[in-house]
């Protein structure tokens, strides 16, 4: 029995009431832009959605004032597609210490109800990884959001930028129906724009107003071995200049050389050599020597290891490095502080160098033209004196520029990267050499497989105890070394247990007898040595009658992911080379051996080699992956690569004492 009261439930009454109201009336209290969006909002699809919300409209309007100040207005309209409404019920606006948020508004249009303006109090929260920074986000909550709700947010801010360069990322972390960036400039201003990562439309121009619009941006999808969706999203870069007769407070960049000059002026004197810097470098190089290579190595290692990373990004300090002497005295600093100290240290020993401003992380943020600021990191390009040959450890970080000559790139902030290696997150990136008038864009070396290597050497024999005794020496370089160093730095105990755990996972009866590491060899590698034994005659997978696996674990060197339903690219992050060399004693004369072979495909190759002398077997397996990425259309090639890995690495031989 349903009571009358239940029939007149408030929600039902509201539904009946709203059924008589035209949608225009429901949205009557909305501002025009929101009402227009509400008018055309699509129905919420029935059933469970794949994303909890969608962005119906996203707009950023930047009005440049005659003094270079920016008046910014951000509007966005969200539609709750799910009963999980967290992503809809809070609006946000990120800002820094050059920005003042002047207005925050939100409206909520629940399904079949009237729109209401939010009365919530905004909250500012500090964000970011920096130890100390002015980065914040202003949050505004909207109450009562439910499935089908439309929520409209509007933020207004005034920014006094340090330079007139804008970047707008068309990315909301959700599917977007319509996204727009609008730019209004005073008459006579120059506006140069460029699309990065994806081609985009030319702006629509109406007087002094330009607008760029994209539609139908799909929902990001998180997958293993995939780049961050935001790093692949369309990015619009804009360069602004006032007419020549107008002077504005922010810097303006006509070309990359002017960006270089701006930065050089800003950091002038910061890399000056002080007596303390001279003393510190002398002490650092005393154990190695005074050749250019030794100076690069000593100074780079000194800054990398002695100066701890502490980011203080307040105001202009976010761009201007501290004086090298101060960083040395305090022994802490961020990337530009560390890099500037390295420059001073190199200068103290007669090696000139340049700051390189760059974007860390692999995303393309810097166009060739016009100049648009897309940097978040600072490394150093050291000039190699003419006629000097550098050892092999420097090969991957070297490049030659027609104007600047031979350069070695050093990132002293990466405390797991050997001096002479280039972090994979920087490979192939476009950076700005800040060298005053001579400043220019350079493209860092993209890297090749030999820059990131794992070399594993195994020696095995059957002992008198019937066990298989193995000694495994592994050497890592490049990004592969950085990964294991990072683990080692966090906890040497955990690293050792992880390595031993992997051995026990493969051979559950294994006994690890010895373990040692060398975090950084003289040639910049990470070296690890492991001795262990395990039963040969027992019924373990490896030690069956089928024999001893020649390259244990080799086929797993490259992570694999399901491809059947995958739409996005598989990205290994960097090219790499993996090489196993195995020497076994006690291989019977009549034991069959495979033929040495060479396999190759598009961007990869595998070589195996086997030789026998008496009962000694020497085998090697080498894989070179020269590409880092396989698009979805290339998955057949990727499968071929994986299949070849397994097939070539799976050979076994019997052993006897």
């Amino acid at each position: 029995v349903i009571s009358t009261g239940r029939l007149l439930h408030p929600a039902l009454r509201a539904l009946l009431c709203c059924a008589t109201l035209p949608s225009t009336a429901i949205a009557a209290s909305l501002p025009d832009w929101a009402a227009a969006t509400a008018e055309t909002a699509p129905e919420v699809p029935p059933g469970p959605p794949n994303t909890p919300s969608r962005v119906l409209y996203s707009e950023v309007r930047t009005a440049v004032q005659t003094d270079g100040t920016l008046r910014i207005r951000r509007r966005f309209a969200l539609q709750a597609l799910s009963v999980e409404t967290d992503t809809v019920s809070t609006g946000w606006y990120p800002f820094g210490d050059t920005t003042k948020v002047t207005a925050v508004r939100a409206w909520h249009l629940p399904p079949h109800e009237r729109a209401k303006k939010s009365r919530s109090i905004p909250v500012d929260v500090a964000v970011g990884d920096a130890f100390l920074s002015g980065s914040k986000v202003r949050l505004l909550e909207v109450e009562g959001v439910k499935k089908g709700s439309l929520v409209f947010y509007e933020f207004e801010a005034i920014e006094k930028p340090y330079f007139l360069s804008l970047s707008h990322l068309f990315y909301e972390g959700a599917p977007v129906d319509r996204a727009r960036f609008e730019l209004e400039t005073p008459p006579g201003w120059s506006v140069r724009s460029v699309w990065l990562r994806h081609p985009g439309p030319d702006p629509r121009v109406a007087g002094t107003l330009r607008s760029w619009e994209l539609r139908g941006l799909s929902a990001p999808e998180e997958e293993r071995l995939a780049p961050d969706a935001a790093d692949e999203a369309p990015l619009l870069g804009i360069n602004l200049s006032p007419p020549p007769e107008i002077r504005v407070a922010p810097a303006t960049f006509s070309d990359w050389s002017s960006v270089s000059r701006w930065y050089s002026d800003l950091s002038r004197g910061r890399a000056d050599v002080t007596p303390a810097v001279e003393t510190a470098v002398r002490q650092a190089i005393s154990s190695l020597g005074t050749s250019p290579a030794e100076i690069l190595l000593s100074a780079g290692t000194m800054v990398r290891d002695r100066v701890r990373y502490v980011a203080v990004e307040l105001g202009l300090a976010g761009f201007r490095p501290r004086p090298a002497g101060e960083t040395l005295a305090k022994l802490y600093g961020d990337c530009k502080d560390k890099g500037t100290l390295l420059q001073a240290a190199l200068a103290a020993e007669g090696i000139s160098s340049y700051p390189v401003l760059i974007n860390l992380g692999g995303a393309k943020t810097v166009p060739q033209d016009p100049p648009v600021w897309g940097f978040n990191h600072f490394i150093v390009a050291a000039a190699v004196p003419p006629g000097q040959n550098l050892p092999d450890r420097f090969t991957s970080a070297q490049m030659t520029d027609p104007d600047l000559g031979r350069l070695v790139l050093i990132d002293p902030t990466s405390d797991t990267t050997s001096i002479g290696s280039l972090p994979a997150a920087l490979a192939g990136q476009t950076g700005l050499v800040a060298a005053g008038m001579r400043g220019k864009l350079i493209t860092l070396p993209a890297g090749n497989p030999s820059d990131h290597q794992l070399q594993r050497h195994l020696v095995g024999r059957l002992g008198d105890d019937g066990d298989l005794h193995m000694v495994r020496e592994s050497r890592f370089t490049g990004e592969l070394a950085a990964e294991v160093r990072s683990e080692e730095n966090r906890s040497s105990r955990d690293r050792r247990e992880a390595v031993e755990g992997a051995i026990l996972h493969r051979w559950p009866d294994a006994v690890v007898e010895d373990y040692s590491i060398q975090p950084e060899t003289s040639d910049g590698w990470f070296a690890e040595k492991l001795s262990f034994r395990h039963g040969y005659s027992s019924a373990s997978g490896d030690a069956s009658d089928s024999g001893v696996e020649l390259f244990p674990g080799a086929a797993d060197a490259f992570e694999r992911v399901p491809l059947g339903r995958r739409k996005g690219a598989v990205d290994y992050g960097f090219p790499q080379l993996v090489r196993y060399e195995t020497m076994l004693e006690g291989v019977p004369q009549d034991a069959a051996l495979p033929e040495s072979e060479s396999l190759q495909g598009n961007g990869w190759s595998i070589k195996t080699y086997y030789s026998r002398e008496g009962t000694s077997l020497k085998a090697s397996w080498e894989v070179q992956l020269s590409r880092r990425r396989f698009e979805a259309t290339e998955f057949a090639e990727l499968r071929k690569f994986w299949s070849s890995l397994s097939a070539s690495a799976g050979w076994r031989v019997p052993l006897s004492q």
Partner: protein
Amino acid sequence: LSSAGFASRPLSAPRFLALGIALLSLTANEAPAGGKTVISIRPGPRSITPEERSLAQDPSRGAEHGFILLDETERDESVGVDSSLTYHLRAKIFSSQARKLADLEVPYNRDEGVLKKWWAWTLLPDGGVLELKREDLKEQEVMRSGGFKIAVLKGSLPGVVPGCIIDYGYSLTYRGYLSTQRVEIQQSFPILDFRYRWIPWEGRAATYHVAHATGLGVNTVRDQRSVLVTGKDLPAILEEPWMPPADEVGASATLYYRATADKPEEFWKLESKRLLRRADAFAKKQSIEQALTSMKISEQTELPARLKAAYDWLSKNVRNRSLLMNEEAEAEDEDDKKEATRRTAKEVLEQKEGEGRELDFLFYGVARALGAEANLVLTTDRTDHYFDPVLLTVGQSDWTLVAVRGPGEPLDKATYVDLGSGLPYGDIPWWVSGAQGFLAEPAGYQMVMLDPSEARRNVSEAHAKIVFDPQDGTAKISWSMDGLGQQGLSERRAWRTLNPADRQKRLDEYCGATGDLEISRAEAPGLQDLQAGFHVDCDGTLLEAHFRSDLGQYSFRWDGAWIESVPELTSTSRRESVVFNFPRIDHTSIEVVAPPGFVPTALPKVAPIESPFGRYNLFLTVTPEGCQVERLFALTALAVPAKDYEPLRRFLAEVHQADATPLVFQKAAGRP
């Protein structure tokens, strides 16, 4: 100030306690009242002492990156309006990882207090001293809303290098008092000397509680208005697999104010009464009796059978709104959600649905109406924290159960149930079992141990068939998994909440999707029925089987996603207990069809593996089609103390080794 002393009734001692699960909270050694608590916090010496200089790295003890030499705090809230905090830390730095200790953050808001004292310096190995001055500290606003803000002062100590000592401290005032503080006595660094003094506001009842300090050099001294917790030579907390939750390892102190000054006994008695009052108000006699009429339970049957029948009827006829399928939740409109808060059993029964606790209250009423003694039990998700009766707050509980038994029967005969959980009568979710619960009684309460279900109630049955394809070297794999009791319970509950796309991804993963195994079908057909148990069907192709007809012999590993994973313990040492999810039995049956033209070689006989923690059997037999693998794995232990770690590790290693036994096929006689 009241101490953490607790005079509850003695606990029953279930069998698995003998295995040493450290689920009881522990109070520290407590000195007699009236002991001195006064400490004097002042800067440490401005030079490295010989003892400090001699301290060296010891990764095995967690002293790889540094030592905290002294960590001392005094929090004086005695005035109630304005309080003071004095803090001092002295540490030795060994590595760059420990240098983060030199990035200082002071919880100071200049709008609400005064920074009265500050010192911070780095003592260099060569005898030099570098100072971080007060004026070098920068304020960072962490949060601001309206006129309220949270701010901290930040600064970095200069010149920090391996081998140096850092020493810093401050004294500041702040407005009001902190209602609850959790103090980590043990941390990720070893601590040589720890002191924490709390002087609470006398205007409110204050309580402290020290946990997990047994066997450590932790001592507590209190007087009428303050408490001092000290610790000496405290080892670092180490991360270990299958360890108790983070909150339950490492010594900690909880300092808090309570609404009343009741003694613990009184506090819990009052909470017990409140809980029962709510349940009684919910489960009114008339509506319960109407429900019983609907159930048509024969009065001739024994009470346990009637209770089970009622449980089964309610499970079938009343939906648990706390565990809706994603499709159900998304199909509801706002009116459904508004009506989700029901006040009485009558409403639940009329609407045929209720939230988790409403269902517990309902069964509590039904059981009593059937003539049983019924009690409500508050407990926790033990993967997060344990119920601690010494911590006087009911807020620690996040789960409710019902204990039922015959009239006059002792409590150890009680059956614990969780209506709406999807588990059969007599089972409770594994994450609340093996831990203490608070059992409410009309005149008081009891702390009870909630036994884990026996392994035989948690059985998984997997059936797989593997067929090789000589054309492309792959193998087709079809398998299904059924789970009883706790088996698959977590997965079912998690999958139900996911949208279909995300659920399919999880199902693919469960079925073993990797680059080597492409899953073409992954289904959980009974997922919408919470009572239906666990069932998954999978089909896939093993891409890297690498069978070729020209091989003379072919070796194949039969393990995979169709075998419930066996815990892997590889470290040779252990500090904490090992705590598994639940005792269980896994039965796997695999039919491996021999590759065309091949026959199995003589299959090895694998000896049974027996241990106090479980057992394992593997039978490999030749069949007309190829091979049959029958595998039985029983994990009967729930919690294993660190002293028994090595035999447990060996047992699991032997199981892993047996699971690696390959099947070997050779070319059939007469085949080319």
